[in-house]
């Protein structure tokens, strides 16, 4: 107003109102965005709402939101784009002839086209089609392509947007500090959909969205890793509890599959000796297709190569891959496929592979889950293999024990037979051999008694020699029988008081002792576990020998002493008799071994000490002799006080 109160300046006010109005509108838009950001739960919800919001606000026919997914930035949400366009434009990574992602020297993948520029910040602010906030925008792509070069555009563009007829294209980066989350793409076939101001607005709004996305993706990651942890611990638990890990692979892998957003899995096992893989479990392909791949050659298709080489194969963007190994899975509509070897040490026992039809690549955490599940399955199969191996070797051992037992039984039977034969022999010896001798003795006796006088002195002498030989033969047979019966007619072991045994033996030999005037000293003797009859025989023979082998005209002195140590008893029977040369200390224990001629006072069968040794050995003991000729002998018997088993 001027001094007169008239309107002097009005335009400025009008402009001022327009700007304020625009700012109010922008504020309202921002509030609307922030409101739905706050009300959304999870990334998917948020992105869906954002796509709708940007489509409404921009008035563009097509909206897409790309988000980082591993190395790539595929569309997370699209509105209004033709299906084929989305399919072809989905991946921003460039791939070589083998289908592998092209990377720079730092190992980062090269992200193609103008989207790649905006996401990675490959922008030149001096160019009019780059906004200060890092966006790209064009209101007439046909003219832009005609007036600029690839160098101007910072990359070799694919030009599919223009090819599809989109004249207006805006690419707004989604960034949180240095974190590159993706971008918002606004396309319209009409020209001039954007202005500097609207792009600046979208950039500000994209900033809000990026903050929310960054937070929700972090939450997603946390949730994902928590559910992965649960999945893997369940898997491990199920496998550990299972006696049939091969059998539960199917159910187990279905869980893993749904978790990884995969639709297909295959589990092949190497069939030893055949050189082929056998399909143990699978899901996601028709039954008739599964039957076709029941057997797979080593080196055939992806699984065959993994089984042969023992290395993981990850095949991505299979639709565009020239790799013929992926032809099979490509035919099932699989777009990304990862096959892990199941290894026990260096040995490949099979493969476990997962495929997805909805994505063209896997994320590192997905591959990590697959590897862990594969390792768990391999460990479970190894465990079962070991158990089966153990069971098998136990069965084999049992079989061998059975065989050996039966062999032993046969041997025992044979032994029993030969023992029986021996018993039969002793019976024959006792009856059939002794019988004729008895006759010779009896009739010889009758001959001497009735007709002795008519035989003459010489004749009687011959007859006496015959009868003497018969008597010797009889005692030899008796001794031999006695010796063989030590084992065939043995009594079981029981508590035996050796002092009592020795007392009985001395009482039996009393007549002999009185005749020679023998002096016998007996020390303390304990109770042992033994065969009483045989103990009696042992002492009878030892004391009998001591009395027999005496120096003529000298009073025999015999000492019997015992001492025990460490559960073993040591008994010494010592005499002052004629003794013997130590050279014979061993041979005197052999059957029929005699050191003295038949004639004279030291006559015997030569079986006494052999019987002693056999008795002692049957009781788990030992006997040995020491002597000095002319001074005396001592016999040392060692016996266990207790018997571990019945003889």
């Amino acid at each position, binding site marked *: 107003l001027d001094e007169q109160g008239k309107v002097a300046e009005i335009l400025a006010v009008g402009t001022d109102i327009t700007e304020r109005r625009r700012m109010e509108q922008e504020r309202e838009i921002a509030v609307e965005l922030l409101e739905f950001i706050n009300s959304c739960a999870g990334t998917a919800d948020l992105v869906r709402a954002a796509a709708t919001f940007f489509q409404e606000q921009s008035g563009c026919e097509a909206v897409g939101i790309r988000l980082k997914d591993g190395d790539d930035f595929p569309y997370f949400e699209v509105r209004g784009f033709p299906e084929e366009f989305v399919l072809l434009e989905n991946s921003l990574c460039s791939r070589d002839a083998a289908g592998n992602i092209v990377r720079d020297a730092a190992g980062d993948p090269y992200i193609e086209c103008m989207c790649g520029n905006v996401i990675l910040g490959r922008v030149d602010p001096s160019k009019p089609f780059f906004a200060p906030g890092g966006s790209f925008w064009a209101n007439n792509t046909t003219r832009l392509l005609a007036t600029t070069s690839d160098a101007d555009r910072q990359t070799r563009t694919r030009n599919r947007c223009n090819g599809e007829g989109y004249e207006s294209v805006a690419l707004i980066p989604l960034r949180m500090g240095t974190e590159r989350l993706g971008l918002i793409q606004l396309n319209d076939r009409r020209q001039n959909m954007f202005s500097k101001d609207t792009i600046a607005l979208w950039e500000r709004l994209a900033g809000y969205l990026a903050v929310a996305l960054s937070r929700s993706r972090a939450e997603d990651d946390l949730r994902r890793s928590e559910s992965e942890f649960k999945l893997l611990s369940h898997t491990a638990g199920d496998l550990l509890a299972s006696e049939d890990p091969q059998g539960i692979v199917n159910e187990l892998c279905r869980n893993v599959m749904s978790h990884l957003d995969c639709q297909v899995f295959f589990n092949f096992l190497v069939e030893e000796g055949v050189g082929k893989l056998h399909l143990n479990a699978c899901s996601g392909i028709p039954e008739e297709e599964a039957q076709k791949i029941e057997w797979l050659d080593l080196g055939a298709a992806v699984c065959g190569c993994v089984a042969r080489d023992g290395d993981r194969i990850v095949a991505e963007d299979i639709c565009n891959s020239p790799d013929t190994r992926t032809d099979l899975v490509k035919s099932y509509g699989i777009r990304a496929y990862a096959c892990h070897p199941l290894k026990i040490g260096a040995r490949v026992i099979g493969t476990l592979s997962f495929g997805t039809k909805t994505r063209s690549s896997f994320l590192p955490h997905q591959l990590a889950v697959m590897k862990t599940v594969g390792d768990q399955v391999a460990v479970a199969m190894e465990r079962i293999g070991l158990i089966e191996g153990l069971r098998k070797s136990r069965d084999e051992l049992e079989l061998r024990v059975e065989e050996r037992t039966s062999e032993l039984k046969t041997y025992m039977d044979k032994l029993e037979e030969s023992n029986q034969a021996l018993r039969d022999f002793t019976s024959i010896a006792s*009856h059939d051999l002794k*019988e004729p001798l*008895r006759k010779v*003795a*009896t*009739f010889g*006796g009758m001959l001497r*008694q009735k007709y002795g006088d008519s035989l003459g002195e010489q004749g009687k002498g011959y007859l006496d020699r015959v009868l003497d030989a018969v008597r010797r033969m009889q005692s030899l047979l008796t001794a031999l029988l006695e010796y063989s019966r030590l084992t065939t007619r043995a009594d079981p072991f029981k508590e035996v008081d050796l002092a009592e045994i020795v007392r009985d033996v001395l009482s039996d030999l009393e007549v002999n002792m009185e005749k020679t005037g023998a002096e016998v000293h007996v020390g303390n003797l304990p109770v042992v576990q033994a065969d009483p009859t045989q103990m009696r025989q042992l002492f009878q023979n030892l004391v009998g020998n001591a009395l027999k082998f005496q120096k003529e005209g000298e009073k025999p002195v015999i000492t019997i002493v015992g001492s025990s140590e460490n559960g073993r008893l040591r008994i010494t029977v010592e005499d002052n008799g004629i003794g013997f040369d130590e050279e014979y200390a061993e041979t005197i224990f052999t059957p029929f071994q005699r050191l003295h001629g038949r004639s004279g006072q030291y006559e015997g069968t030569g079986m006494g000490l052999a019987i002693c040794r056999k008795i002692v050995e049957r009781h788990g003991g030992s006997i040995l002799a020491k002597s000095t000729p002319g001074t005396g002998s001592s016999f040392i018997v060692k016996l266990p006080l207790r018997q571990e088993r019945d003889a």
Partner: protein
Amino acid sequence: MAAEVQKAVLMADDDVEDCMLATEAFAESGVNGAIACVEDGIELMDYLAERRRSEAKKLPDLILLDLNMPRKDGRKALVEIKSEPTLQHIPIVILTTSKEERDIALTMKAGAVSFITKPATFDEWVQMMKSLARSWLE
């Protein structure tokens, strides 16, 4: 003495020398009687059956029985005789080479009156016959 009834002893033994010794020893012992011999259990049972049927012949007053004989041994014959009512009264003495305790127990249980191991000299044979006659023939 002539009025006395002659005693009859039957010896069952496959050993002909022992039968000969027994016969000589029986004669030497001065016992009024006769000793007859059979060679095995079957002959023994036949002999006894024939004696039982004939009224002219009498059953033996004593049987000397060996255990180990062909065809039918002394153990079986002993059991058969002792289970036959017309024969079980005859005293049976086991005269054998066996010293088996099992045989002794078995035969005594089966009804034998004595178990004697065959003598080793002729004098002992004669003593044995005298003693048997005192116990079972008077």
